[in-house]
């Protein structure tokens, strides 16, 4: 059964997907730069308010994943913010997140060289999201 994005249940499934993706384990092996937070902007009624997804990543493993407030998400060393529809495109692999950041469709807060160096790991995080059977509540 499809899981609504971005619910607690979806985030748990996302964490499992990351940790069972061998390609992420390899690509993210050098990641020691801390938490990556994703912020989805509100799109009522599918998403009534802005929410953050907290991903505690280190050395190819996702140790914790949880729903947080936008204020909490902003404290992460890396925070990527986008409209609900943009995240939908990312999960469906219709929008490459690096292209999205270059075109200003996704906003990055954090050290750009670190993200560039970890581009392969970023791609596997997106691939992992694609492995979750996701429901979008505006459809």
């Amino acid at each position, binding site marked *: 059964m499809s899981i609504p994005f971005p619910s607690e249940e979806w985030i748990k499934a996302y964490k499992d997907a990351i940790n069972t993706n061998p390609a992420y384990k390899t690509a993210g092996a050098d990641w020691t730069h801390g938490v990556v937070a994703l912020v989805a902007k509100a799109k009522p009624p599918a998403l009534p308010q802005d929410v953050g997804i907290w991903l505690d990543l280190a050395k190819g493993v996702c140790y914790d994943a949880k729903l947080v407030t936008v204020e909490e998400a902003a404290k992460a060393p890396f925070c990527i913010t986008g409209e609900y529809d943009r995240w939908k495109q990312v999960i469906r692999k219709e929008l490459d997140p690096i*292209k999205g950041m*270059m*075109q200003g469709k996704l906003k*990055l807060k954090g050290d*750009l*060289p670190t993200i*560039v*160096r970890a581009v392969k790991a970023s791609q596997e995080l997106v691939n992992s999201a694609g492995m979750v059977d996701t429901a979008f509540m505006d459809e």
Partner: protein
Amino acid sequence: MKGNWNRIVGIDLGSGKTHDISLPEAVWRDLIGGSGVGAWLFMQHTAPKTDPLAPENPLMILAGPIVGTTLAGSSRFAVCARSPLTGIWGEGTCGGNFGPMLKSCGVDGLYITGRAASPVYLFVEDGKVSIRDAADLWGKDTYETGDMLAKRHDEKRARVICIGPAGENLIKYANINNDKGDVIGRTGMGAVMGSKKVKAVVVLGTQKVQVADQAAYDAIRKDVLEKIKNSVPADSLHSMGTDASMDLGMMTGDIPIRNWSVGEDFDLSAALGGPTMTEKFLVKPAACLYCTIACKRVMKVADGPFAMEEGPGPEYETCCSLGTGLHNKNAESVLKANELANKLGMDTITLGSTLAFAMDCFEKGIINEKDTGGVRLRFGEVDGVFKMMEMIARRDGFGDVLAEGSRAAAARIGKGASDLAVHVKGLELPYHDPHGWHGMGLAYMMSTRGACHLQHLVHPIEQGMVFWDGVGLKENYDGQKSEGKGVLVRIAEDLGVPCNAMVLCNFVAWTLYPPDFPAILKAVTGFDYDIQSYLGCGARIWLLKRGLSNLMGVTSRDDVLPPKILAPYKEGAAAGSVPDQDVLRKEYYKARGIEADGKPSKAALDAAGGLDEMAKRLYG
């Protein structure tokens, strides 16, 4: 008309006389400036098949209307002539601070013909040109020459362009150096300068360029700065330089490796990519005049065999040409080789590509150490690179063969070597790989100066670094599809060619939107440009340059990709992907209005307007 002075100084080195050239206002309006005006001047005054190294081939050093204003990205200038490397229309542009000072002299450019009896340099002071003896400078490298001339005239204000030993020795890809790290690199303009026995040009001026609509200009200038501030590509260029794209490029199949033979090697991007180069060698970023992106790198190698004093670091293209292309993972050696190329005065793209070609020949047994004078040319080994660079710059032994570029060297070597030379119309490919990006392959096929990545905006559009709606472009392009790229490339040329003519930096252009380009030109010149007339200028300039190259011998048989690009990689993001050059050419010819023989159609020339003379030359 504002922005331009409408004064180009003609200099005849044979007689030592100078004269002023002014152009009809419509020429400035329709062709904008820079290489657009250069192409028009060439058509008016020069037989197309003039020997590129003959006194009659004019060396044109030209600014554009926005040069000399305070707009970010406006500090560039162009140099044009028939190319000794390709035999067709040649040109290059360069940043730094020479362009604005040239405009401060009250001139838009210099039109240099003839040949001096002995080495000279030109001193342009507030519009007055004097030809001075350069006997003491001849033989010196570009760093020393620039320093000596700046000190001689005004250490703080004088701006210098010069050639190194490569230009003096007519190396076909000799460049022209400005401020050590900025170069007119492509198509061998340094050799044309050397053929005229001109070692350098020094400019020193005090005049201020006037804009037509100050309020509009001020608003645009502020808007450009704001857009740069909010641009992720600009942030990326600032923090990691142009080499920022190597790590991403390795993911997308954009990085040429080992003379375009290998599709992927993440060890190379980890060793040579922007984050690593920044961490290991960056002293500070540096900027062209008035630019807030500051993509240039000041770097240093503290010690070891490739120790380098603080100075200009390599750009992305050089990290590839002297790095990935040679399968060289030694980053320190890339910095040092870049410095040596700058000092000797050679285009690092053609240099690296020609060396990679020679290594391929060497490893395949087509040439051996007897041919190379004992120099071992093997991928991943840097000793031979440094030895051969010196030999090329002095035309010593096998260096004399490689000094002609890969196409001519392959013809001389024979034994199937031509299949290993990676060029279009004699100009070696820049380091964005058409296996991963078919649109870029088409842009290389159709560029008016041979394989070029700068005179159009295909790179940011096809790779999705920008999304520009309202001009006929799609939001997303699949890099590994050839269908649909003909229209993309035509639009990207029509957008980019006028940027090149005004002369606006591509990286600043990436942060803007299409309507910004005509708005900038309108505010500066007073001509009533809108997006349609702006795109029309792009088409007109492209057709004019193409027509010149047709008159120099280019036909549809030259609009092809080299064999290496038509062979698929086994590995990497572009594995199995090969541009379909027939589809690409067919679509493009239709979109641009090119006849089967490769000439612009009469209808396309008529529709562009202002090209009657070219139509007459091509069709009688």
